[in-house]
Each structure stands twice: as structure tokens, then as C-alpha cells.
């Protein structure tokens, strides 16, 4: 059987005779990678474009149609040391990118207008007391109006539209006071220009838009990056399957091109990418990613298998079924739907602030106006003063207070190995006081490791590793990896269900079941010591060795658990695995509360319990069985190795083997939330100082400009402190 790889699903036309493909690349992190990849790919004849996008970790490739196969690019990247996967831009992501570009365009227009209106305003301010004649002043005001009005009409769109949407549904958001402030300021300035007055506020209105657009753009670019990372994750999950395209012909195809009824081949050591039923073959499968159970399950004709299962020993043929047919998945999907609906509509800090803000500001402006009328001022003067209050209080700093902190914090988290899936995750994460961990794949690593490696002589280990490399069995793969074996032993023979054997000169070597290697006694001793581990035996002539293989705890788990406990966070393990395994992990980590054999519904019940007790729960889990509880928790986190559904549900995803990113994320989030609050108070403090000046009616455009830019810059500088966190401090 010949396997071909078919990526035509991802290839697009890029003009006459040109083809285009986007690849998500793993491990691109620096400028050196960027030029290495671009040079390596451009060196292929007929490639017309190879450009790395370092922000999104992607490569765009174009080539002359006909000669090249996209699979070749992936091989070339593998030679260069990068894993790459074909990639398809999701509709939502394209929309985010377009929105981001629109905001940047608005920002450009607003900034241009601000600078030019300022250029006209400063002579007016400095000339008013000296030699500027009224005609010149009017001329400058008219010119300002000519620039500011169209610029505001264009650059203000994001705010006007959002305010209009909110008002139509009977709500008030931050954009309502912004829009009212800007429009009134512009309208008043036009009237004042016509009246040949001394002061206009074109500069204040347009500067306000500029600052707010900076905040809006930062917010949007954070969301766009999150979306891009999520898109890459989906592609990096190696979503391909080996499909039968004829009776005896197979092809490697993306999962998107597989439909119910297709038959796929599942080799030993492969992870199943689809749901289906076994129609041929016999094997053991590891369903730990789905149920948390680490014991293998026998699979034969008629056994259902789910995406994420790992095939251990034999080759299987699987008939693909619709996702909803699986009883287990259907149950999980139902729980997930319920949990998502029940997820309390979390009100973001910014929205809470604006709910308080808008009525207070508008009432103040109105009262100021009425007050001046009662005090005997003319209607004109009273309205001018009222509008001045609105301009001064327009939430410039308030609009920047939160997005700037979020952007800085999410950038710092990104560097610490934590990716955000949702914008308000930082706020919610900062509030937690209880963490529920899943065990399998979360506290432990998903890969098997040899736990007694230290007790085995190096040269023996190396030989065992070479022998192991000839087998596909995951346990053998663990031995091979631990031994650092690079080249398989020549002439080794696999005995199905037993192990592998090979010759070293005249000496026979065997690796496999203890009975196969005649090492049962040694194996039994080891098994008593470590009841959870799988035992692999190795015989070298007369000598006998055993390897104990199991899922190890994450390397820094103990230290990180201690660090979390130090932060006054309650920890708990809820696992679907057997009791001894969970108990051992809990004891090793020093976690007092744990429960084993827990079903997805039990996990949710526990979370609801804690919620009722007033606790804010962070759920950290990776399995398919964790997905509903990830959605039910206040905030949730998954390792990068997690099942698809879980990763999509989690608010945050962490990379790599250590558990340190979890602690770092909590630290960054707490720091970020305190800075957000600080920034809000800074904005309030500024208003407390500036509003009395505005109410008393002595505000000039110069004071408004200085106060507004001053407070905005202060808030932005304060936000930069969000990346200063003592990382991973135990």
C-alpha cells in the first residue's frame, strides 16, 4: 500500500499560473528562524514567494503551478527543523483582521487631523493675547473645522456605530458618552466659529478620538492575536487521517475532507482523528485523553473509538461515524451545552465602569448648565459651560485604562507560555481562590516516561533504546526516547503481542513482555514497588533488566503546587482515573483534597457546589471528559496537548511540559487586575481635579488638551508595569 499526502484542500489560486498555501509553523520564535525558513523555501526552484509572519507564526507560500507538491514544502520545513501544517483561515479570523485594519485606518486619519488642527490651534492660543487679529483667528477656526469635521465623521465610526447599536437595544455602553461628547463638542465649535468666538474645541474632540482609537486598536490586536493562535492550534493538532481511497490504496488527508462512512486506517502508535467503529483488526487502545482512565481498553470489531484515542498494539480499520452517534460524546456535548448556557454572563470591569460613569457625567453636565442659567448666565454661556464639562470628562483615560493593561499583560503571558482564548480571561483569572486539577495529562505529562532510568547502566539502556526504536508500541517508544536512541537496530524482528528481538553479534537481545524475556520474577518485584507502572523487560544474553514506564508528573509540578498554595489558593484533584493512581499523585504533590473515578457530571456538580459556597474556581484539565467542567468553571485552562474540544472551551492554554505557566498566569492576571483598578482610579482622580474647573466655566481649549493628553499618557505608562511580575516565584 502506498500512502500519498493530499493537501489540495488547502491550496488556493493566486493569480495566473500561481498557487498559494498558508502553513502554520511550530517553533518559529525569532528573527533567525524567520530568515532560515525564508531562505530555505526560496531556494526551491519555482517558488515565487515565501514569507514568514512572526506575529501569527505562519508562512505564506506561492509557486508556479504544475511542478511542485505542497507536501514537499512541509518536508523541506521538517529538514530545516520546523513542523508545519497546512492551514485554512477561518471566517471569524478574517473578519477580525479586517476590523483591525479598519481601526488602524481610522487611527491614521484621526492622528493626521489631530496634528494639523493642533498646528492651527496653538497659534490661536498663543496669539489671543497679543497680535492676532480676529479675522486671522476666524480663518484658523474655519480651517480647523474643515479638517476636523470630515476626519471625525470617518474616524469616529467605530464609536458612533457601537453607541447606536447599544442605544437601539436600550443599553448604555462606554461609546454612548464618547459619541455624545464628541458630537456636542464639534457642534458647539461650529456654532462658536460662526459667532466669531474666541474658543473652539475642534482640537479636543479629534484628539479624544485619537487616544480612544489607540485603546480600541490595542484591544482589537490582542483579540486578533488570540484568534490567530487558536487557529494555529487547530492546524497544529495534526488533523490528518489515513483514508482508504480504493480497496488497497490509502492517502493521508485532512480531517476536513473525511466524511461519515469513510474507512480510515489506524496504525499502532497513532492517535485517532475521527469518531467511528472498528470494522477490522484487534488492538488495545488508550482512551486517557477522553476518560482520564490510564488502563488500556481492548478494541475489536464493533468497538467504538473516539477522536483522541491512541492505538497501542495492532492495526485497525475504522468506519467513520457522525460525531453525534457516540454515546460518550453525545453525553459530553449535552453537558457542555448546559454548562455554556449556565455560564453566568460575566460583566467586564470596563462595562461596570461605564455603567456607573455615563449617568454621572451626563447629570453633571446638565446640572452645570441649569446651575449657570439659574445663576443668571445667558443660555449660550450656560450651554458652552455644560459642553465643556462633557469634553473634559470624556472618558479618554477611562477608555485606555483597561485595554492597555490587557495588551501588556497578554503579551507578557504569551512570552511565559500562556495563550489567551478570551479577552476577559485575565480579569476572571485574577479573582480565583480555588483550583481544580484534572490528573491525567494535566498534572502528569501525556507521554510515557521511564521512571527507573537511573538504575540501569547506560550502555544497556542505549541498546534497549535501539531495539525499542524498531517497534511502534507506545511503551517501546517511551524507552527509545528515554534512551535517546537515534538509529534502530538492524535486523530486529517484532513478535506481535510479545515484543522485539534482535542480535548484537552473537548475543540475543529481547525487549517486551516479561514472559517474552524470561524476566517475570524481576518484573513482579518491580510491580510491587510501583503498582501503577507498565513493566517492560529487556534481556541481553543472560542479563535481565526491567523498565517501569508510566505517565510522569510534570517536572516542576511539586514546586508549582507549593507556589500556588502559598498564594492562598485551595487545590483539589478530580480525576476519572482509578483511586491508587490519583492517591499517589495527590500524595506526591501534597494536595489534600482529591477524588478518583469522577464522571464529567460529578465534576460539574462539584464546581456548582463550590460556586454556591462563594468560591471562584479555576478548572485546569485536558481530557474530553473535562470539557463541560472547563465551561462550567469561573475560568479554565488547558495544556496544549489537550483534546480539541477542551482546548476550544478553555479560556487559557499553556504550552510546554512545565506547570510553571499556570502560576505565572495567575501572577500576571492578579497584577493586571490591580493595575486596571489603579488606572480606573487614576481616571477618576483626574476627573475629580478637572471637573470643578470645567463647572466653574474657566476651562479653555488649552487646559482641556493638556488635561486629556496628560491623563491618557499617565494611564498608558502605568499599564506598562503589568509585565513586571516576579515570575514563577515559589
Amino acid at each position: 500500500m502506498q500512502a500519498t499526502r493530499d493537501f489540495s484542500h488547502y491550496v488556493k489560486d493566486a493569480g495566473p499560473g500561481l498557487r498559494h498555501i498558508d502553513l502554520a509553523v511550530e517553533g518559529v520564535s525569532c528573527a533567525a528562524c524567520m530568515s532560515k525558513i525564508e531562505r530555505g523555501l526560496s531556494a526551491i526552484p519555482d517558488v515565487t514567494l515565501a514569507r514568514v509572519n512572526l506575529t501569527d507564526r505562519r508562512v505564506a507560500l506561492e509557486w508556479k503551478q504544475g511542478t511542485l507538491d505542497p507536501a514537499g514544502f512541509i518536508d523541506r520545513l521538517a529538514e530545516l527543523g520546523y513542523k508545519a501544517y497546512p492551514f485554512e483561515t477561518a471566517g471569524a479570523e478574517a473578519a477580525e483582521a479586517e476590523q483591525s485594519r479598519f481601526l488602524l485606518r481610522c487611527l491614521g486619519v484621526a492622528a493626521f487631523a489631530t496634528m494639523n488642527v493642533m498646528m492651527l490651534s496653538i497659534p490661536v492660543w498663543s496669539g489671543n493675547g497679543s497680535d492676532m487679529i480676529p479675522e486671522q483667528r476666524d480663518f484658523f477656526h474655519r480651517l480647523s473645522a474643515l479638517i476636523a469635521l470630515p476626519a471625525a465623521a470617518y474616524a469616529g465610526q467605530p464609536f458612533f456605530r457601537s453607541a447606536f447599536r447599544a442605544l437601539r437595544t436600550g443599553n448604555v455602553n462606554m461609546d454612548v458618552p464618547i459619541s455624545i461628547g464628541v458630537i456636542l463638542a464639534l457642534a458647539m465649535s461650529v456654532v462658536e466659529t460662526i459667532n466669531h468666538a474666541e474658543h473652539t474645541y475642534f482640537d479636543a474632540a479629534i484628539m479624544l478620538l485619537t487616544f480612544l482609537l489607540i485603546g480600541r486598536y490595542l484591544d482589537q490586536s490582542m483579540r486578533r492575536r488570540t484568534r490567530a493562535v487558536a487557529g494555529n492550534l487547530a492546524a497544529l493538532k495534526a488533523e490528518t487521517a489515513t483514508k482508504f481511497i480504493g480497496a488497497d490504496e490509502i492517502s493521508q488527508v485532512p480531517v476536513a475532507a473525511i466524511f461519515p462512512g469513510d474507512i480510515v486506517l489506524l496504525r499502532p502508535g497513532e492517535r485517532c482523528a475521527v469518531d467511528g467503529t472498528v470494522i477490522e483488526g484487534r488492538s488495545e487502545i488508550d482512551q486517557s485523553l477522553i476518560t482520564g482512565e490510564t488502563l488500556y481498553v481492548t478494541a475489536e470489531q464493533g468497538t467504538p473509538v473516539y477522536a483522541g484515542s491512541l492505538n497501542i498494539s495492532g492495526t485497525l480499520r475504522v468506519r467513520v461515524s457522525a460525531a453525534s452517534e457516540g454515546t460518550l460524546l453525545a453525553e459530553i456535548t449535552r453537558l457542555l451545552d448546559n454548562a455554556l448556557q449556565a455560564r453566568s454572563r460575566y460583566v467586564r470591569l470596563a462595562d461596570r465602569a461605564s455603567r456607573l460613569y455615563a449617568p454621572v457625567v451626563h447629570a453633571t453636565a446638565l446640572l452645570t448648565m441649569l446651575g449657570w442659567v439659574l445663576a443668571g448666565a445667558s443660555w449660550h454661556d450656560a450651554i458652552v459651560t455644560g459642553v465643556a464639562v462633557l469634553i473634559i470628562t470624556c472618558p479618554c483615560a477611562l477608555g485606555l485604562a483597561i485595554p492597555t493593561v490587557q495588551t501588556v499583560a497578554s503579551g507578557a503571558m504569551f512570552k511565559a507560555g500562556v495563550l489567551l482564548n478570551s479577552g476577559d480571561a485575565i480579569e476572571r483569572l485574577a479573582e480565583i481562590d480555588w483550583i481544580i486539577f484534572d490528573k491525567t495529562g494535566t498534572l502528569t505529562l501525556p507521554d510515557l516516561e521511564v521512571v527507573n532510568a537511573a538504575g540501569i547502566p547506560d550502555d544497556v539502556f542505549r541498546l534497549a533504546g535501539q531495539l525499542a526504536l524498531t517497534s511502534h508500541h507506545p511503551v517501546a517508544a517511551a524507552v527509545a526516547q528515554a534512551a535517546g536512541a537515534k538509529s534502530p537496530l538492524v535486523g530486529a524482528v517484532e513478535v506481535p503481542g510479545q515484543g522485539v528481538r534482535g542480535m548484537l553479534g552473537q548475543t540475543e537481545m529481547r525487549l517486551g513482555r516479561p514472559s517474552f524475556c524470561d524476566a517475570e520474577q524481576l518484573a513482579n518485584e518491580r510491580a510491587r514497588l510501583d503498582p501503577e507502572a507498565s513493566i517492560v523487560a529487556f534481556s541481553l544474553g543472560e542479563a535481565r533488566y526491567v523498565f517501569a514506564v508510566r505517565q510522569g508528573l510534570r517536572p516542576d509540578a511539586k514546586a508549582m503546587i507549593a507556589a500556588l498554595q502559598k498564594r492562598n489558593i485551595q487545590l483539589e484533584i478530580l480525576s476519572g482515573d482509578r483511586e491508587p493512581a490519583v492517591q499517589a499523585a495527590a500524595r506526591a504533590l501534597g494536595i489534600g483534597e482529591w477524588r478518583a473515578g469522577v464522571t464529567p457530571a460529578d465534576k460539574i456538580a462539584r464546581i456548582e457546589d463550590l460556586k454556591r459556597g462563594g468560591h471562584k474556581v479555576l478548572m485546569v484539565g485536558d481530557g474530553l471528559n473535562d470539557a463541560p467542567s472547563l465551561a462550567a468553571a469561573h475560568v479554565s485552562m488547558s495544556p496544549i496537548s489537550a483534546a480539541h474540544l477542551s482546548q476550544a472551551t478553555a479560556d487559557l492554554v499553556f504550552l510546554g511540559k512545565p506547570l510553571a505557566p499556570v502560576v505565572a498566569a495567575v501572577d500576571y492576571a492578579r497584577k493586571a487586575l490591580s493595575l486596571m483598578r489603579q488606572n480606573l482610579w487614576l481616571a477618576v482622580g483626574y476627573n475629580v481635579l478637572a471637573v470643578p474647573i470645567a463647572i466653574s466655566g474657566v476651562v479653555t481649549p488649552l487646559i482641556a488638551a493638556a488635561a486629556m493628553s496628560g491623563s491618557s499618557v499617565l494611564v498608558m505608562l502605568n499599564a506598562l508595569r503589568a509585565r513586571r511580575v516576579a515570575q514563577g516565584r515559589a
Partner: protein
Amino acid sequence: MEVMVILVPLALGLGLAGLLAFLWSLKSGQYDDLEGAAWRAIADDEPPQEKPAE
């Protein structure tokens, strides 16, 4: 003060030129990868080659 007749349009014209340049750069995708662009500035240039050596 007659000089303003030249200076003001000149200043606005220059500003407008800057704005147009910005819009062009945005449209040609120069803001799509800010992180990569920051590094490209300090990357070593390779002299263009007709037939790159493999």
C-alpha cells in the same frame, strides 16, 4: 502675514501626503506582522542571487 497663504496649505499638504503614505503602507500589508517587521530591520541582507545554491 501674506506668507501664511503659502505656509498653511504647504503644511496641510505635507500632512496629507503623510496620511496617504500611511494608508498605502497599510493597504500593502506592512502592518500585518509588526513583530516580524521589527526583526527584519536588523536582519542581515543577502545579496540577491539569480540561481540560489541548494
